[in-house]
C-alpha cells in the first residue's frame, strides 16, 4: 500500500494521440454510477470509475486516463493519482493481455501456490512481474483472495480459477490464447 506512494513518479506520463473518451455504453454506466450518491458527493464514484476506465483503456491507468476521470468528477488529477496508487487492483503500467493474479498467502501456500507460480513462469516463459514474450500473459503474486478453501487458486479478470492443478492450468491458458481478449474485472 504505502510503498506505492513513492511510485507516483512512475506514473506513465505518456500521452496518446487518440482521444480519451468513454464509449457510449461506458458513458451510460458512468451516469448510473453517479446516480448512486448525493449530487455533492460524486467523488465517491472514483473507485468505480477507475475500474471502468481500466477496463475501457487497455487494462491500465495512464496519466491522461486518470486526468480524464478527474475531469468527469470535477476533482484535481492528484486526487485520482493518490487513490489509484493506493489500491492494488489499479495498474499504473501496461500489463500482459491476461493478468494472472496468484494468491500466495497461508492456505494457498500450504496447498502449493509456489509450485503454481513456478509452473506458470515456465509455461508462459516469463518471470513473475514480467510480460510474456508474446504479450499474452503476466503473473502477479497477490494476497488472500477469499478462496482459501479451494486453494491453490488464481484470478484472471473477474474469474476465479480454483483447486488448480498443472493440467487445469494448461487448459485454462490454452482457452485464453484462443479467446485472445484482454481480461477485465468490470
Amino acid at each position: 500500500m504505502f510503498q506505492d506512494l513513492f511510485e507516483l513518479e512512475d506514473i506513465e506520463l505518456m500521452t496518446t494521440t487518440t482521444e480519451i473518451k468513454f464509449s457510449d455504453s461506458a458513458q451510460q454506466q458512468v451516469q448510473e454510477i453517479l446516480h448512486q450518491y448525493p449530487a455533492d458527493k460524486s467523488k465517491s464514484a472514483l473507485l468505480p470509475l477507475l475500474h471502468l476506465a481500466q477496463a475501457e483503456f487497455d487494462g491500465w491507468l495512464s496519466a491522461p486516463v486518470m486526468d480524464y476521470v478527474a475531469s468527469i468528477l470535477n476533482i484535481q488529477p492528484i486526487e485520482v493519482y493518490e487513490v489509484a496508487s493506493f489500491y492494488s487492483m489499479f495498474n499504473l503500467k501496461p500489463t500482459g493481455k491476461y493478468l494472472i493474479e496468484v494468491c500466495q498467502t497461508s492456505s494457498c501456500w500450504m496447498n502449493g501456490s509456489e509450485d503454481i507460480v513456478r509452473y506458470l513462469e515456465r509455461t508462459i516463459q516469463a518471470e513473475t512481474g514480467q510480460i510474456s514474450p508474446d504479450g499474452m500473459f503476466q503473473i502477479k503474486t497477490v494476497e488472500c483472495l477469499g478462496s482459501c478453501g479451494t486453494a491453490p487458486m488464481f484470478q484472471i479478470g473477474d474469474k476465479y480459477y480454483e483447486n488448480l492443478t498443472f493440467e487445469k492450468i494448461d487448459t485454462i491458458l490454452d482457452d485464453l490464447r484462443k479467446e485472445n481478449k484482454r481480461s477485465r474485472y468490470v
Partner: protein
Amino acid sequence: MSKKLLLTYDHIPGINTLEVYRQNNGYKSLEKALKTMKPDDIVEEVKKSGLRGRGGAGFPTGMKWSFLAKPEGVPRHLVCNADESEPGTFKDRYLMERIPHLLIEGMIVSSFALGANTSYIYVRGEYFYIIKILQNAIKEAYAAGLLGKNILGSGYDLDLYVQPGGGAYICGEETALLESLEGKRGNPRLKPPFPAVAGLWGRPTVVNNVETIAAVVPIVNFGGDEYAKIGIGKSTGTKLISASGHINKPGVYEIELGVPVEEFIYSDEYCGGIRNGKKLKAVVAGGSSVPILPTELILTTAKGEPRLMSYESLSDGGFATGTMLGSGGFIAMDEDTSIVKNLFTFARFYHHESCGQCSPCREGTGWMEKILKKFIDGKATMSDIDLLWDVQSKIEGKTICPLGEAAAWPVAAAIRHFRHEFEEYVKNPQSIHDVKHYFRLNNLVEA
C-alpha cells in the same frame, strides 16, 4: 428451530433467484418487519438475540445500533462490510454468491430498523463477479417492489447500492472503508468520533459485516429470544466458519456456537479430519490475525477442558494459552507444516496491507517480514528471535487502527508456542529444505 439459520436453503437450485428464494420463506422477515413492527422493535429483538458482530471484533450488534445518533434532518446510513480480506476467511463470499437475497433482505430490514433510506454494500474489488450477482439480485428486488419507494406499501423508501473496493485489506477496517467509499485512500480515521456519530460523509452510520446483517433475518423471523436459545452462553446463534488448510473437507460450515473444536476438525459433518492420515500440528482459528495454537491447546484449554467453538472458550487463557474466534477463518496445519514459513506469508501480507499512517505499523510490519525472510533463507541468528519478539511488542497499543496489532499477534504467538522451530532454523538451516512441505502438486514438479 433448526441449527442452520443462514445456510438452510443454500443447496436448492436457483436459490440465487428471487422466485426460488421467495418460495423458500424468502422476504418473510421483511413483510413481518414492515407490517407488524416499529423500527425500535427490531432493534430490541436484535438486542435480545445477543447477536455479536461477525466481522471479527464480536461487538454486540443491538448495542451498536442503539448508539446510532439521530439528529433531526440528517440522513443516516447502513453500510455493509463485504471487504472480506482476512486470510483464511471466505464465508461472506459463499453467502453472497449462493444466497444474495438473504443479504439484501437483511439490508432492507436493518435499514428500516435504523431509519436509513440509502444503504451501501461495500464489496472487495477482487469479488467483481459477486458484485454482478448482487446487482442482479438488487435489480430483481427493485422490480418486485422490495426496494425503492414505498416498499410493500409501507411508506418506507430504501435505495441499495453496491460499491466495489480497489484491492486493500485495510478497507475492511470500518473507518478506512468509509474513506474508501468517499473516493479516497483507505486510511483509517482517528476515533472518536465513531461512525455512529460521524460516518459516511460525516453522517451517522452503522457498519456491519455481511453475516451479521444476514443473521437479522432469522432473528426477526423467529424472535430474539428464540435466537438466543441457540449457541452457548454469550455466544448465541450460529456462525459461519471458513475451513481451509490440510483438512479433508475444506469449505464453509454453519455451526451452532459451542461445537467442540475436536468435533469440528474430525467429524465428517465438518472438516473430516486431517488429509492423508497426517497428524494435526497447529490451528489458526479465527483468521490470520488471531494467535496460532498447537494441537494440545486448540483441542483443550490449559485447564484441560474441551475447547469449544465459541467466543469465550476460544479466548480462554488469554493470549498465553488461548486465541480468538475472530472472523471464523479456521486454518488447520498438519505435522509437516513449517510454522515459520506460514508466519512469513502472514508477515508479508501485513506489510503489504499496512496503510502507512503510523510508524510502528508501517516500519514494524516491514521489519517483521525482513527478519522472517532471514529465517526462511537460512541466514538468521539466535538474536533474531529476540529482535523479532522486540519488534512485535512495540506495535500493540501504539497505532491508529488495530491492523498493527493484528500483524503483531501472530508473530508473538508463533514465538510463544513454537520457539523451538525458530531455533531449529538457526541451528540447522538445512532443515528448511528438509521440511516436507508436502504440496499436493509436489510429485508433479520436476526437480
